């Protein structure tokens, strides 16, 4: 019996130790001295496109060109049209050790991936590597040096002072305006549109005749303001108001008086029908192009869908109306000090047991920053290249100069949208990245979505409503469970969770029992 107890204790102990071993993850990546070209590497690349075949073609060409340079590397691409799905799939695959090698993603998401040990490869040493780093002398292509990556965009990829991604493309949001309707209502579109201006025009557009037809467009449908990404809407409004959102340590500050005021403004215009969102009504571009919206706010990366001559469209041709489209930066509270979000895909690489394979992944990730890929992809939408090296080429400058010369590659609305970011990089910002920042972003959008829906459902928006809303959103997105700060060093992961403490206590107990048993057994044998 005693033997059985001892064996059971040992088993328990080994099981516990095995559990600990499993949670330690992989060893940190170390850069090999040389890239081994005698072996073949098959890499998985998870990418995202915007339902735009040209983007797919750019990726495919990049892979083909890269494989020609490095015949021992094969890149298999899996395309997504939704960042959320990539995020979910990566999380699932971390637990099974089957992450992709290279992945297009957002820094917010990387922060969550990093809750595993050595899952995402830190890139600073790779950046600086003389042979294979940025602009390295062993590269088989003309990649950018670190100082040729737009510093602001590169900084966005740093978490806790360490870079875990490369910027791939950047965009911001833009305000796409039906100028004809604005002027018909007696207004002029200013260079910088304020929130007040936009909502004033929007309310003026709500006038109807007795039959319920809107006077401005002669149709029964008119939603003057439609916002695609309400998380960005709330984030930018708060930033422009210098109000709280979060800090780099993951402290949540979004539930403040300014947020309440902003939501009350949203409620007013949702109630009149002057404001709606993508989630509630559908794509802003479809309403804009059908003459059913005056201010469509969407990413510059959606510019090819905007305007009465948009090359991409989701509505039948006979629903288009003819109007002049103008593009402006997102609405501002202080036009003298504009602020706008910087967004767009970044690329990270995942750690693998074979450091040569990781190096191969790094070579491909870096290849995505070469001029042909950067310019090719940027031209598919209102994106901008992330390197000065690509931006300063004659090819890219000529592309910008030729805006409006055709309705497709040089579609003027798309190039105007790109210029919004190119001309205003100094006014862009990003939000702090920490484990949980992706949830906070979702919560920011949910506040606007929820208020807009509630107004439409004729609920009362008052202090009690706001209190409940804040509490509900806090619970839904688990914002009361701080999940970690931005500094992801081994010694700064914060206090151990209760479950871990209990496990360690259990282990100690097991060892005490084992040692106690051995001591008792020894004494018994001695006597």
């Amino acid at each position, binding site marked *: 019996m005693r033997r059985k107890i001892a064996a059971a204790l040992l088993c328990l102990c080994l099981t516990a130790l095995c559990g600990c071993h499993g949670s330690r993850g992989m060893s940190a990546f170390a850069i090999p001295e040389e890239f081994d070209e005698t072996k073949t590497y098959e890499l998985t690349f998870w990418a995202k496109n915007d339902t735009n075949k040209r983007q797919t073609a750019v*990726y495919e060409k990049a892979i083909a060109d890269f494989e020609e340079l490095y015949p021992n590397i094969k890149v298999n691409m899996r*395309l997504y*049209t939704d960042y959320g799905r990539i995020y979910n799939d990566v999380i699932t695959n971390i637990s099974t050790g089957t992450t992709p090698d290279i992945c297009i993603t957002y820094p917010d998401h990387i922060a969550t991936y990093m809750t595993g040990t050595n899952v995402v490869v830190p890139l600073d040493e790779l950046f600086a590597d003389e042979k294979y780093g940025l602009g390295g002398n062993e590269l088989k292509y003309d990649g950018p040096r670190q100082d040729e990556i737009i510093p602001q965009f590169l900084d966005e990829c740093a978490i806790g002072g360490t870079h875990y991604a490369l910027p791939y493309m950047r965009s911001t949001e833009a305000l796409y305006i039906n100028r004809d309707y604005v002027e018909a209502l007696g207004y002029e579109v200013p260079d910088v549109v304020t929130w007040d201006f936009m909502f004033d025009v929007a309310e003026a557009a709500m006038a109807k005749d007795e039959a319920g037809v809107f006077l401005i467009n002669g149709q029964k449908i008119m939603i003057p303001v439609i916002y695609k990404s309400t998380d960005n809407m709330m984030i930018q409004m708060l930033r422009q108001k210098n109000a709280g959102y979060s800090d780099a340590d993951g402290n949540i500050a979004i539930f403040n008086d300014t947020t309440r005021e902003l939501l009350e403004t949203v409620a007013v215009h949702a109630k009149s029908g002057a404001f709606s969102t993508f989630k*509630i009504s559908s794509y802003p571009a*479809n309403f804009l192009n059908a003459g059913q919206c005056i201010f469509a706010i969407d990413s510059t990366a959606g510019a090819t869908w905007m305007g009465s001559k948009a090359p991409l469209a*989701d509505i039948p041709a006979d629903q288009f109306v003819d109007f002049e489209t103008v593009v402006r930066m997102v609405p501002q509270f202080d036009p003298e000090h504009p602020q706008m979000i910087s967004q767009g895909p970044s690329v990270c690489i995942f750690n693998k047991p074979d450091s040569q394979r990781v190096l191969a992944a790094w070579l491909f990730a870096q290849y995505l920053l070469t001029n042909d890929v950067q310019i090719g992809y940027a031209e598919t939408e209102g994106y901008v290249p992330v390197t000065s090296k690509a931006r300063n080429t004659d090819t890219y400058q000529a592309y910008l100069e030729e805006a409006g010369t055709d309705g497709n590659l040089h579609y003027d609305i798309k190039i105007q949208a790109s210029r919004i970011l190119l001309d205003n990089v100094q006014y862009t910002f990003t939000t702090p990245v920490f484990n949980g920042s992706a949830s906070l972003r979702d919560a920011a959008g949910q506040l606007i979505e929820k208020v807009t829906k509630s107004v439409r*459902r004729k609920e009362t928006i008052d202090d009690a409503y706001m209190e409940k809303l804040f509490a509900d959103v806090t619970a839904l997105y688990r914002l009361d469970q701080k999940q970690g700060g931005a500094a992801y060093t081994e010694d700064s992961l914060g206090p151990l969770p209760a479950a871990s403490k209990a496990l360690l206590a259990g282990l100690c107990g097991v060892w005490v029992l084992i040692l106690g048993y051995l001591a008792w057994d020894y004494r018994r044998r001695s006597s």
Partner: protein
Amino acid sequence: MKKFLTAAVAMMMLAGCSNTPKPTPTPEPEQDYAAKSEGVMTFAEYDAAELDTKVTIEAYVLGHQSWWNDKVTVYAQDPDGAYFLYELPCSEEDAAKLVEGQKIKVTGYKSEWAGEVEITFDEGDMTALEIEEGNWIAEAVNADEFWGSPDLITMQNRKVYFTGVTVEDYTTDEDGATGAAFAYKNPTDKTDDLYVQLTKGDTTYEFCVEYYLCNEETDVYKAVEALNIGDVVDVEGFLYWYNGPNLHITAVGAAE
């Protein structure tokens, strides 16, 4: 035709398109499957309800898209009308119970998105779905008479079929004629919807194989991939709407 489609659907549905044998439509009802529990709207009441009002309905599952992130999008119908339940909060365990014919009770908000009248839900409201006792399988309804007519919208969300429609060259404004009978939303690894344009008379509609309803492993996905321009086919599915009719195809085959 009905026999063909019934047989085809039986092979093709995966949660709507699975390859497992599918029950045949319920024979002439012995009970009133349109009857509602207390506090539940009839379809007529639902149809008359204003947008953004709270609604409670009972219906029978036609099919559903893949469960993800504690949500599932469900196609449902009762003998009087059909419902599209967009991102219904639901555990994975309950999603597994949403087999064709299963009776459910749902509380949400009547909404409209790009012309699609649907029921939407508060984020994370796990009380929105109740799985009830009862089973009824809707038979696909011939909707040929509505092709090209504004009245097609009266069939919205129902399980319908159209006969004798012609496969067009899949053309987009961007590319012009492609010489292909269909288009992938994601041609590289087929992880997204599949589009096809079908014509009868003067009217062409764009329908799709919704990836999360019928993925690339299903027979219907493969059948659409095998279409040729000019083929005349019969097509069945759930009459979704996206700025116009946008059938989510569950079966397709040569016209009888």
